[in-house]
């Protein structure tokens, strides 16, 4: 693993490890309170994660109004069905972001024609940047965890990072990624797997 990733993980572990544990425990407690109908707990989770959820929705659908609707729906699901969250499967924040991501990708795929029309604009934006990740990674005093995830993304071989970004942040399917990059479908799959394995090792290191 590259030294910069190791360093970022170390920072994440030392500086924010305990805070991260407390934060995860607090989130689980908030979900339990929401199960009991606690609106204040709902407000706290909303205030904590809605800005990140909004960032993800905007990034995928590229329309503010649609993104707001997606974020609302995800948080309504949290309110109405908090029991769906299974703490054995992961963290509250990842669960929330996964709900937002699935909804956002659904919107993108349902509006495929509109998406294709806007692709030219997206390509134009990308061409202006030296590195497409730069727009994503414009950090301002980011927490250690965010820093670590960003650093880990940057550390991926360019072709793996490209596949992850096109799928996750642009909502493209495996075939669409293959078409866009010109890589064979099997290559796209293996790049996605290798990239996710490396990212998962960073996440697991952070959670230790």
């Amino acid at each position, binding site marked *: 693993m590259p030294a910069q990733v190791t360093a970022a993980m170390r920072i994440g572990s030392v500086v924010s490890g305990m805070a991260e544990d407390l934060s995860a425990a607090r989130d689980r407690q908030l979900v339990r309170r929401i199960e009991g*109908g606690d*609106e204040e707990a*709902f407000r706290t989770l*909303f*205030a904590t994660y*809605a*800005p*990140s*959820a*909004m*960032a*993800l929705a*905007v990034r995928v659908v590229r329309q503010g109004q649609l993104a*707001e609707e997606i974020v*609302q729906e995800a*948080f*309504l699901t949290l*309110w*109405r*069905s908090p029991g*769906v969250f299974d703490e054995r*499967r*992961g*963290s509250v*924040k*990842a*669960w*929330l*972001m*996964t709900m937002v*991501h*699935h*909804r956002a*990708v*659904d*919107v993108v*795929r349902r509006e495929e024609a509109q998406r294709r029309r806007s692709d030219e604009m997206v390509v134009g934006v990308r061409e202006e940047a030296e590195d497409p990740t730069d727009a*994503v*990674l*414009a950090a301002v005093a980011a927490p250690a*965890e*965010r820093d670590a*995830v960003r650093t880990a993304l940057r550390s991926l071989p360019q072709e793996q990072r490209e596949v*992850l970004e096109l*799928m*996750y942040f642009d*909502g493209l*399917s*495996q*075939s669409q990624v293959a078409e866009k990059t010109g890589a064979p479908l099997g290559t796209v*799959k*293996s790049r*996605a*797997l290798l990239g*996710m*394995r490396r*990212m*998962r090792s960073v*996440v*697991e290191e952070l959670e230790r």
Partner: protein
Amino acid sequence: MSERDHGLIEELLALRALSGLEPDDDATLRAAMAAHGDCEECRRLEAGFEETAGLLGFALEPVPVREELADRVLERARSSRRVDERRPRRRAALVAVAAALVIVLVGVASLRPRTQPIIGVSPTQEVIHFQGDAGALAMVYAPGQPGALIWGEGLPSPGAGKTYEIWMITGSTPVSTGCASPTDGALAAYTSADVTGSDVMAVTVESTSCPAAPTTQPVYTATLA
């Protein structure tokens, strides 16, 4: 189970966590996972990739949300809560409605065309019929309000250690509304979920752990108007 088999599952789970999986491979993944049965390694891989994908979004710089958005969500949430507080009464009312309807529906559920009105249903309520191989399954709900009653007759047993899980699906995102098993082929289940806005309702056979995502193909489906 061989390493190679887990290799396929791992690859497809990584793609699914990124939302990059397409229907054919999704079916392959479901079949492979079903073949593994109660597979701890599969669960570990699935949870690990889902967690990783969920955290990828935190690489983005947060976008401040408008105060009105928070207020709107909370107001809708409060509305849900008000409905929940009335749930015992509402549930009793729905059960009474269902009891009355069962007499009618048992006779007509599998016979009448879906477009034909059913006597006894309030104009504010909708009844939808599920399509499936055996028995009759229907759902009544009031559009725009949380809560739906699902009941059926002549349903096959889901099998030992299995249960029916009922999903509301918007686009390709399934959200579980709960699990229920029939007794002597009869099923009556209430969900507090607001099914309005869903595209499709579906029922799958799952383990009694009632998983958060479907692992098998639907055995009953119904399209909402």
